[in-house]
């Protein structure tokens, strides 16, 4: 049972090895509700790996991860919203079809066209929902990733370089998304080295130092 005032995310001695190469070593971290924590570090320092471990997409070599007390990796996936450069949506489907599919497959219920349009408008893709993703620019695809991550009111948002390929308005959008998550009492883990994004965090955890 998750207690009041307890950490929303808890990492205890999390480590990851790829063969003989050690990527993460005994990372311990508590993230409180409403908090925004920036994970910074050089390329290859394990920022993305850490986010994937938190999301339950990678198994840590050592240590434990709990989101609202949930330690099971498969169950944790339903507690996070994830957007990262390696996340790809279906390019042969339209934006509306993508959002409708992921909503239905996650909740078992259909999402109304109006709500999907609202989600697209929120990320600056209003009126483009019936276009195939194959026709989207890299910046528009990044906005779709943000729409994908933020559609389910999850307790923890995991954003891996969220401003990648975004224009100035897009960078402001990332700030709005994080502020909205904070207002709802959710936490955000932000993996980045971009100073504009680092400034959005309450604290910075540096990896590889």
């Amino acid at each position, binding site marked *: 049972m998750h207690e009041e005032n307890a950490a929303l995310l808890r990492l205890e001695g999390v480590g990851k090895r790829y063969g003989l190469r050690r990527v993460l070593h005994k990372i311990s971290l508590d993230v409180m509700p409403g908090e925004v924590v920036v994970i910074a570090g050089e390329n290859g320092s394990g920022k993305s790996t850490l986010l994937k471990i938190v999301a339950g*997409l990678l198994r840590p070599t050592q240590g434990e991860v709990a989101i609202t007390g949930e330690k099971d990796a498969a169950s944790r996936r339903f507690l996070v919203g994830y957007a990262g450069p*390696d996340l*790809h*949506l*279906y390019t042969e489907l339209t934006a509306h079809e993508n959002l409708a*599919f992921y909503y239905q*497959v*996650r909740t*078992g219920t259909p999402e109304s066209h109006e709500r999907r349009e609202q989600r697209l408008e929120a990320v600056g893709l209003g009126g483009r929902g019936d276009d195939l993703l194959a026709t989207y620019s890299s910046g528009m695809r990044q906005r779709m990733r943000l729409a994908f991550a933020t559609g389910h009111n999850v307790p923890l948002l995991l954003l891996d370089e969220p401003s990648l390929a975004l224009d100035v308005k897009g960078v402001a959008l990332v700030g709005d998304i994080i502020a909205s998550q904070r207002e709802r009492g959710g936490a955000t883990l932000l993996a980045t080295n971009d100073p504009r994004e680092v400034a959005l965090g309450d604290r910075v955890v540096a990896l590889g130092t």
Partner: protein
Amino acid sequence: MRWVREALAVFVREWRAEWRTRVALSSVGLFAVISLVLIALSLRDKEGNVLDTTARPVVAAGLLWVVVFFTAATGLGRAFVNEEERGTALALRLMARGTAVWTGKFAANATLLLLLTGLATPIMIGVLEVPVNSMNLALLICVLCLGCLGIAAVFTMTSALVAQASVKGGLLAALSFPVLIPLLQAGVHGTKAGLGVGNPEALFSMGSGDVQVLISYLVISVTSSLLLFDYVWND
């Protein structure tokens, strides 16, 4: 019911994507057509006569399953390999439960294979001029449908395994074939009975043993896939 709706969403997405790209339909369809044309050419003599009457249904049963097996190997392997290669598996893992993903993809694979088998079977019967008066159509349809469902179940599961491997070429058929031997044996035998081989009165009961084997195989393959798939999908 929620699980069914989630699986249905995967099924609809698979077919919507397939309808737009026609990747599997074209590769599978092409393979089936080429196979049938080659069979038609190779089994006729200079005068255009096809084998003797008794050999036709035996050859047709064997060749039909060759076409079904390799059609499946050509088209069904894409189920999970595509997701991994295009990077869409990550989003699917985050959003969907493993059992819903497997069921949706199995249903999409099964309908594709049933569709192709439904088209290939009458062509094969026509090409080889199999006598229709000694056929038991109900038995033939029953055996082919159960066989297709079993093959789709096995290929959907092995596709998920192969998708994790770095070298995928040929692995799907190599992994699936030993597992499918009991199904293929019952399938070929049941098809022969359905086409009237050793069954001059076209009785369903002559192939009921094979139908029972195919039902058992289907139940085992679907159940074991649903039980094991989460381990493959989540790791």
